[in-house]
């Protein structure tokens, strides 16, 4: 009947839209992607049109995440058949080898892509991921630095490098990477806030003051960034409590901290409205802020 057909189609559209949103947001919710994607591929392939190819790619990568080699293999075969000789599909084959921990074979696969196309950034980045997977952090960092000398505008790479440095506790170099990102993305509140966190972690009065400035900047760009708000509170409180600062600086930071306290309490009260359970969070936050104020004065 016509009605059945319509509701069937709506279901398929919804599933397809979900997959597209997850693709656009770069969501790594692999189990859900496999759930939705597998059904689409198995039952509704004919209704997907040309979208099916990008869906095969998305589902294949998610399947690798979930150790569903059967599903990954199926997707890969379909893509190989449709796009013979494609570098993009070759890269997917390499990723499958990585998932199977066949790192040497995967590396060879990427090398063969690079032989045909030395500027293939995806293949180069996969090779660096292999180093990461093998725990070879120093090598991964070295290769990624070399990559960035050539591809200085690759933001994903700069961010990856900052994370590698943070894991090695090399906060100075992590800060440098985030500075690059802030320069090219001055309106991105997340980069500001992460930079502030790195500076805070580095420690010392100068870094604390820098961190407070960048937490404040992140808040200017997005006044709902709770990490930036808490960060402003923590950095200002620590500066105010530091015996080295003069009275003016101390007074200013006590003010910043007091402002942040207000904003934090407000944010918690707004969030806790109507839920009995969240009241414990509100209370705990109020008490925490009060107790820290005592140590500041």
């Amino acid at each position: 009947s016509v009605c059945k057909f319509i509701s069937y189609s709506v279901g398929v559209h919804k599933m397809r839209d979900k997959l597209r949103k997850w693709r656009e947001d770069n969501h790594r919710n692999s189990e859900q992607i496999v759930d939705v994607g597998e059904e689409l591929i198995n039952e509704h392939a004919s209704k997907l049109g040309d979208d099916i190819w990008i869906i095969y790619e998305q589902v294949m990568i998610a399947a690798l995440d979930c150790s569903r080699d059967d599903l990954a293999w199926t997707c890969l075969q379909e893509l190989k058949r449709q796009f013979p000789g494609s570098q993009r599909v070759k890269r997917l084959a390499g990723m499958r080898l990585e998932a199977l921990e066949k790192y040497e074979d995967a590396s060879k696969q990427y090398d063969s892509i690079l032989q045909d196309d030395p500027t293939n950034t995806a293949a180069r980045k996969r090779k660096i991921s292999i180093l990461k997977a093998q725990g070879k952090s120093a090598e991964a960092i070295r290769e990624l630095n070399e990559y960035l000398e050539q591809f200085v505008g690759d933001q994903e790479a700069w961010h990856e490098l900052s994370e590698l440095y943070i894991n090695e506790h090399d906060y100075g170099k992590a800060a440098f990477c985030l500075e690059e990102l802030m320069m090219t993305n001055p309106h991105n509140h997340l980069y500001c806030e992460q930079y502030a966190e790195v500076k805070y972690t580095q420690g010392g009065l100068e870094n604390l003051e820098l961190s407070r400035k960048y937490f404040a900047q992140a808040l200017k760009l997005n006044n709902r960034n709770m990490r930036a708000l808490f960060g402003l509170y923590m950095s200002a409180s620590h500066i105010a409590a530091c015996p080295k600062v003069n009275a003016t600086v101390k007074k200013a930071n006590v003010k910043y901290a007091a402002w942040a306290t207000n904003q934090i309490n407000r944010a918690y009260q707004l969030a806790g409205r109507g839920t009995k359970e969240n009241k414990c969070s509100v209370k705990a936050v109020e008490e925490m802020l009060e107790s820290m104020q005592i140590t500041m004065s």
Partner: protein
Amino acid sequence: LSYFCLFHSGAYCKMLLHAAKYPHCAVNGLLVAEKQKEKKKDSHSTPILCVDCIPLFHGTLALAPMLEVALTLIDTWCKENKYVIAGYYQANERTKDFRPNQFAEKVGARIAENFSEAAMIMVDSTRFTMGCYEPILTIYDHHENKWKCRDCNADCFEDWCEAQKITSALLEGRSYESLIDFDNHLDDLRNDWTNPEINKSVLHLC
């Protein structure tokens, strides 16, 4: 005198649910115990019961500010509930990497400042199965400024069979999708890091 920490089923299962929710990330969190009323000088070591687990972060762990916020906030919450922060757990990003790193040792030491019998717990993801056939933790105790490894077996649990049954059931039911860690809470303050829904599920299965 050796310390001995016992895991309540709810505490164990939340650690594993946290690791299961973010299989591609490092995760960490805290364990809380009931505050002991009095310390008897002549008693043999009374086991510390880890009654709950507060999942903290996933992804990049080694940054200070949010960790400080979490520690201070959870410490305040503990005081209200007559708990004490008794341990720290971490699962590394790479499955095969189950040894504690410098960061884990630092946080563990910080917790040990306030609670001398604090334990540092590493999750061994190589042995992680849906059936939860064996405990997959390694426990480290703080002795003379060093961390000493202790094996974790069924004796480390209040009731291992119960812990196994509950954890396995919640993994099968994909409860980890609704697990809230402190990172989730910072993304949206309405997300409750005490995980009342999961606590309810655990009680139902007890």
